[in-house]
Every structure is written in C-alpha cells, then in structure tokens.
C-alpha cells in the first residue's frame, strides 16, 4: 500500500516567489545596466572634455617660449618633425597629458598637432586631437637704404654708410637681392654729407617718398611699432647705458652650458667667436622706452629705441635698428659698427665729435636672421585651428 508523507503537500507559493524574483531581478539588472550606461556616457563625456582641454592646452603651450624653440624659426626642411623644449609630452597638471608634434611646412609655417589624453591607461580613456597652423609673426621692415631717415641727416669726418649688401659672416644667409641706396631720405630734407666717399650704395643717396611716410617707421607688415615693442624680450627704461654687450651662459644640473637670455647685457653672439654656440641663435627684441647709450661690446637682434640712440665707442650691432628720436655717434670710442639697416627720424653721424669710425652697412642677412630669429609663432587666425580625427 502506497503511503503519502506529510512533506509532499503541493503549493505554488515558492514558484510564484521565484518567478517574481526573476522578474524583479531582470528589471533591476535592466535598470542597473541602464544606469551603468548612463554613468559610462557621463564619464566618457567628462574624459572627452578633459582630453579636449588638454589638447587645447598643448596647442597654446606650443606658442610659449618654454616649448617653442627659437632655432626652429628659420627651418625650411618641409616635413621635418621637431621636438619641443622638454620633450613631446606636456603635463597640464590635472591628471591629463598632451603629446605635441611639430612639423615644418616651409615658408615660416608649421603644423602643430596636439593630442590630449585623459583618464587612466588601464580604464576608460579620453583622446582628442587638434591641429594648429602656426606661422611666424614677424615684422616686415621697409628699409629703403642702409640708412632711412625722415628728418635731418648729417655725416661728417670718417664715418661711413654703405648700401652694398654686406655679409656678417654667418652661415645660412639668404641670397642677396642686390645693393641698396646708402641713404634713403625724405625728399624735403636732403642729407648733409660733409665727407668725401663716405657714402656708397646703389645709388649713393636717394630721395624716397616712403622715407617721408610715418608708416615706414611705425607699421611693419602685420605689426605696428607698439605691437613689436610689446613682443620685446628685453625692455629697458630711458637713460640706460650699456658699456659692454656680450653673450653670457649658464650651466644646467647636468653640466651643460646654455645661453643665459635673462642677462641684461646678453644680446646674443654675433661674432661667433665663443666656443659655445648656444647664443648665436639668440636674437632678442630690445625695446628702450627712452634714450639709449651704447659704448662697447657686440649684440644682435631688433633694436627699438623710443628716444635717441647714442653709439659712442666700439659697439657692434647686427640687425634692424629703429630709432624714433635721433641716432648719433658722439664722444670717444673705437668706432661704432651697425650691420643691418637703420631707420631713424634724424641721424647725426658727425665724426668730428668722436675719435673712431662709425660705419653703417646694409645687410640682408643680418636683417633676415634677426627678424626670423626673434619672430614669435602665432595661430593663423582665419583657418589655423583644426579638429583632427
């Protein structure tokens, strides 16, 4: 006889409970999945935003002196990939990173690709790549001769002005476009030349309406005088005197020498006589907000003087010189030498007031090298910013 045990009672409460648990579990998992997705989307949005910020940081950092190498300014090897100061990887400081790639495009143009990364390398990561077309922001001086002057011009004694294109003895000089006039002057104020054979050029002197135009002295292509002055790497107050311009070096922690650009009397190394070449590519923009007196040494770059420039002695300067007041050579000295181009409201090269010789020589190479060497990179504003994929 089959006997039933009391444990065999049949019911469906357990089944109902299990089914309910399965349904609830499914819904919970679904809601959890949806929430996780939402979390991930939100996190990815944050990571993408941070990566974009890092990439923008990289692009803007590339414009700074701490990343951009001035020696790149004259690079013409299109396609060459350059390494920024301190390496390709930048640290914005918020946990993200940025990798910079600078490629030479020629003609003073560069493509900067900035790739920003955010997030950990093991987990989710954001990446954004931006590009920037950089071009060198540099002045375009309209030198009309070795000396371009708007006001009075007097030369006497054994001072000399040469319009012939002179090489400063540097390598990588551009081809010479030909000789320039010795003196380009305002047609209403002819120069007072009190010496024989002291001015040469093609022609020796030339009346030039551009020399009478104020914009020649104040507008240099994309830049005005004030904008260029704002780019100055060295600014000095009026009344400053330099007795011995000379390059200066420092030594880093690894024992390597580098050009000390912070030293006020270091205006680069135009002589190329020193064993360390790091100051040879240093072309500062020097702005003096009043009168300046130079009595010795050598420098290079772009010299902007709001007041008068008095070169009294054996000072040598290579590059463009713009003087808003009067350029004069007075006092005793071994002979001031300016190689490049000189633009001044008034010029007084009166040898009778000094013991040595003052020589102003036109030099395409000195002007071009100083312009390129001191130029600053800038975005091409109209189409420079690009989103890269």
């Amino acid at each position, binding site marked *: 006889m089959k*006997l039933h045990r009391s444990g065999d009672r049949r019911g469906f409460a357990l089944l109902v409970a299990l089914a*309910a648990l399965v349904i609830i579990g499914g*819904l*919970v998992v679904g809601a959890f999945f949806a929430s996780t997705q939402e979390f991930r989307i939100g996190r990815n949005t944050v990571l993408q935003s941070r990566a974009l910020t890092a990439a923008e940081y990289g692009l803007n950092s590339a414009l700074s002196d701490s990343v951009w190498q001035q020696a790149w300014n004259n690079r013409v090897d299109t396609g060459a990939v350059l390494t920024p100061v301190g390496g390709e990887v930048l640290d914005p400081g918020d946990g993200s990173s940025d990798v910079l790639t600078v490629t030479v*495009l020629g003609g003073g143009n560069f*493509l900067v690709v900035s790739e920003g990364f955010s997030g950990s390398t093991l987990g989710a990561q954001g990446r954004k*790549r931006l*590009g920037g077309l950089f071009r060198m922001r540099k002045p375009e001086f309209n030198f009309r001769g070795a000396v371009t002057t708007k006001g009075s011009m007097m030369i006497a004694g054994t001072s000399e002005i040469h319009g012939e294109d002179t090489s400063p003895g540097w390598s990588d000089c551009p081809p010479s476009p030909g000789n320039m006039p010795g003196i380009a002057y305002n047609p209403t104020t002819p120069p007072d030349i009190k010496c024989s054979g002291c001015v040469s050029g093609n022609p020796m002197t030339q009346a030039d309406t551009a020399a009478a135009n104020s914009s020649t002295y104040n507008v240099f292509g994309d830049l005005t005088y004030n904008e260029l002055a704002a780019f100055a790497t060295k600014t000095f107050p009026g009344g400053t005197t330099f007795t011995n311009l000379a390059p200066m070096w420092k030594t880093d922690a690894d024992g390597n020498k580098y050009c000390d650009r912070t030293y006020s009397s270091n205006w680069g190394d135009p002589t190329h006589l020193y064993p360390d070449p790091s100051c040879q590519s240093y072309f500062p923009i020097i702005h003096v907000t009043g009168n300046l007196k130079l009595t010795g040494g050598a420098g290079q770059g772009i010299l902007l003087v709001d007041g008068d420039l008095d070169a009294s002695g054996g000072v040598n300067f290579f590059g463009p010189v713009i003087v808003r007041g009067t350029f004069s050579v007075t006092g005793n000295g071994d002979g001031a030498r300016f190689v490049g181009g000189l633009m001044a409201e008034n010029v007084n090269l009166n040898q009778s007031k000094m013991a040595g010789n003052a020589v102003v020589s036109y030099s395409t190479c000195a002007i071009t090298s100083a312009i390129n060497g001191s130029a600053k990179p800038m975005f091409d504003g109209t*189409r420079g910013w690009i989103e*890269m994929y």
Partner: protein
Amino acid sequence: MPIDGARSVADTAIATDRQDVARYGAALSSETARNRRNGVTLIELMIALVLLGIVAGGMMQIIVRQQKFYNGNSGVLGTRSNVRQGIAVFQSDLRAINPALDIYAGTMQPTSLEFREPRGSSVICAIDPTKQTIVVPPPVLSNGAGLSSWLQAPAPGDSVLVYDIEARAWMAGGAEINGSQPTEGSGTCTGAVPASDAARGWTITFKAPLTGTVGVGSSLRFFRKAHYELMQAADGDWYLGYYDCNPLNTPACPADPEPISGPYLPSTNTPPGLQLGYFNSSGSATTNPAALRRIDITLRSQSSSTIDIDGHAKGYYKDSLKTSIAVRNRSYP
C-alpha cells in the same frame, strides 16, 4: 454443557469475527485519517487564498513599482541621451568654422543653420606644373607627423581652401575637387613626407588650376556645405535633421534633411526643441556672421511615455542641454 459448549464455540467464533472487524476497522480508520489529511477544509482554503493574495499582491506591487522605475529610468536616460547626442554632433562641426567665411548669408536662424562644414585638413606634398593636380600625404605617416586628417576622405565635389605661402593668406574662393575619387597610393609625394611613405600619396584633381603661391607644404582645408534644422519626420516626431551638399549631384542639396538625433520637442513648442543663439564678442545677440564669436545651442527633449518615479514629477520627463561654442577661427579686420 453442550449449550455452554455451543455458546463457547459460538462465542469463540464471534470473538474471532470481532477481532477481524476490529482489525479491519482499525485499518479503515487509519486509511480514512490519511485521506482526511490530504484534503483541506473550506476555512483552510480561504486562509491559504488570503495569505496567497497578500503575498502575490505584495509581489505584484514590487514588480509594478520596479517596472515603473525601469520605464521611468529608461525615459530619463533616453531623453538625456537625445540631447547629449545632438549637442555632441553640433559642437564638433561648429567649433572649427570661420563664421565670417563659412556661414551662408541669411541662414542664421533660431532653429536652423547652414554653413561650410570642415571635413578634413592636409598639406600639399606634390603639385604638377599646371597647379591643377596635387598629391597629399596619407593620414598616417611613419615619422608620426599628422599632416592629413579627415572625417571622410576627400571626394569629388568637396571644396578646398589652399594656403598661399607668399601672401600668408588662404586662397580666396577655394577650389573644387573634380575627377575620380582620390585613393591612397594614387600619387607620389615629392616632399614633406618620409621617403618610405612617398608612394602612398592621394592624388587630387581640381576643376580649375589653383592660384597664388602654392606648393609643397601649403596647407589645405576640405569642406562641404552642411545644413542643420529641427525637422518633423514621417513618424510625426521632431528630430535634428542634417544634409550636406555636393555640386556634382542633381540636385546638389537634397530636398529634405535626414534625422540624425532626437526626438526633440516640436518647433511649435515654447520653447522649441532646438534653439540657436548667435552672439558677438561683447555677448550681444547678432545676425552678422562676421561679428559672430559664440553660438549657444539648446536642445530640449521629452520622454516618449509618461514616467512615475520618485524624484520626478509624474508625467512626461523633459530635459534640456545647453552648450556655448566659442568659434576658434575667425577673420581679423
């Protein structure tokens, strides 16, 4: 004592029968008891039903609440996803435009915009003497330089701007790609790329020769006319619609945009599902593309069904997302 004897026999027989009956009765009684335990009384059944009802009711309540939460959560997330997606699309396209040059006249509308959409960039790595055919580098180079990058490969009909090295300006008007679809390996670079990558160039032919001082190293930008608007699709919902134009197609621009994200609130809604604001450098609204410095985009969406979850009002869930885009490129006076 026959009688007694007979009684005695009879008694014995009766006693035997009684024992059988008792045994049978006991067995019967045991079987009946068991049968009685397998059944339920009406009271038991009612109690069980009531308890079951309480349990099932509780469970159903949990399930229904859970389902409401799930649906509500999905509605909220879907709505947020819609607005986020639309903003992402817009942001990427608008950031790199130059408003003065790229926004078509009269198209700066509150719910639509038409502009020249940047599609990629590159540089010239070879150019023929006629300046009508150029070669551009492939997107990936062995030296890590990213000279070419595009959303879609340049195609016939795309407009191209070329940087004039000497003039330090972009060629006015631009050029139009003609001929066959450029492909990798169709041209050889003569500069700008490592020798190992030279043969992987893309040849691009233009409808007319390029002008100005262009050569190896000149930058290129690829564009296509793009149109965005808040549109109503066949299903009756409103979406962010998009089309681009190709002058080689007939017609160059499609009649209707394609929905790319949504749905959003209708354009008749106050405020509408898509709202574009155009501002100048001082933060004032402008209708002049040349003065445009910032574009504000607001997208509004609502859930497809009502939601009923804690923390949100019962009904359709509405959400919006607003972003301000500072255009990176612009023309300087």
